């Protein structure tokens, strides 16, 4: 077999492999447009709600707070699907800080914290039960 024929065979193999790769890339690319379009926000919201529910079931408020801190590095206000995470984490943070201000005897900040806690509590909706749970955890540890 001369060099040209060998080269021909190698190129044919390369074309076949690249065609398969290109075809799959094309399919994935078309699928990615669907994701980038209408599904992205809904999917993110669905995923976030599922994850948050699971974390709440396990009282893993640390994970919810971590999500909050990470998200707030780019968005101070909740983006689509994250409002419950933001509210729960903010309540946790306020409850945590209240104990610190109480130990400092900083009445102004305690009052501010209490006011904000009440405002957040109202936004918790069906998750309002977490306020007692979080207060309980914090009281238990700080006492």
């Amino acid at each position, binding site marked *: 077999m001369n060099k*040209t024929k060998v*080269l*021909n065979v190698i*190129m*044919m193999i*390369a*074309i076949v492999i*690249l*065609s398969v*790769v*290109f075809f799959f*890339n*094309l399919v*994935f*690319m078309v699928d*990615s*447009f669907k*994701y*980038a379009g209408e599904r992205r926000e809904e999917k993110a919201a669905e995923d976030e709600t599922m994850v948050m529910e699971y*974390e709440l079931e*396990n*009282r*893993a*408020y*640390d*994970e919810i*707070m*971590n999500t909050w*801190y990470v998200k*707030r*590095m*780019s*968005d*101070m206000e909740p983006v689509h699907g994250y409002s419950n995470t933001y509210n729960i984490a903010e309540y*946790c*943070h306020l409850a*945590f*800080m209240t*104990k*610190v201000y109480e*130990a*400092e005897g*900083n009445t102004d*900040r305690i009052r*501010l914290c209490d006011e904000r806690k009440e405002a957040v509590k109202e936004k918790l909706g069906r998750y309002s039960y977490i306020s007692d749970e*979080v207060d309980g*955890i*914090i009281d238990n*540890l*700080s006492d």
Partner: protein
Amino acid sequence: MLCEKCGHKIGVEELKCPHCGADNPFALQHEQSMQQYDKRFDKTGKGVLERARSMGELGVKAAVIVILIIGSIITSLIESYNYSDHDDRDTRSRDAVKYSQEYKAELDELIENGEYMESISYMYSHGIMNSGDEAYDELRGYKYVASDYYECMQYIEEIVLRSDNEEYFDHLDTYISGFCMYLEDFRETYEVWAESDSSVKYHPYIQDLESELRTAMGVYFSMDEDEVEEFLSLSEAAKAVKLEEVFRHE
């Protein structure tokens, strides 16, 4: 030329003498040479054409390969772009410069109200944390100390509010080591910036950060002031061991 037999003049390419009919050996040899030349010429021509055709095919195949590679790269790039969260970091950086006065005023309000964690989130989300704009120069010391404070407080919060379900992931070790690491960083940056001339305006807040962090440790690690002081004097590893004892009740 002359015929070898009759001596009459004949053409070089005439195969026989038109006068006596004798063979012209020069013309015969010439004829044979021409035939051989034609054969070789045809063979060479065919070879050249064959080679050109096969090289042409290789060229087409190479072009197809290049097009497929470029196509695969482009589709992959489009796909990853569609799946990625588009970061508008550049816009934030530009806005941090453009609205520096407004941003600084809002930040100062948060700091004056003691909302230190909020102030750090604000700095991250508004591109101030990595902005080199001179409008934020004064904030530099506060920014460094407060960002370490932010990490420490976040870790304490996560330690306090971690899941009590034994079946769930246990992150306590990670949180404790993260906290101890950032606590060391905090103490170093605090020493540098607490009395630095470049951030005089923020000295009271930097000192407040330190005092608040001590208070938080006292409250949530169940330590009095002396125990906090003793805890702070430990090495990073010894601090982690101490916290393990506190939270695992070892």
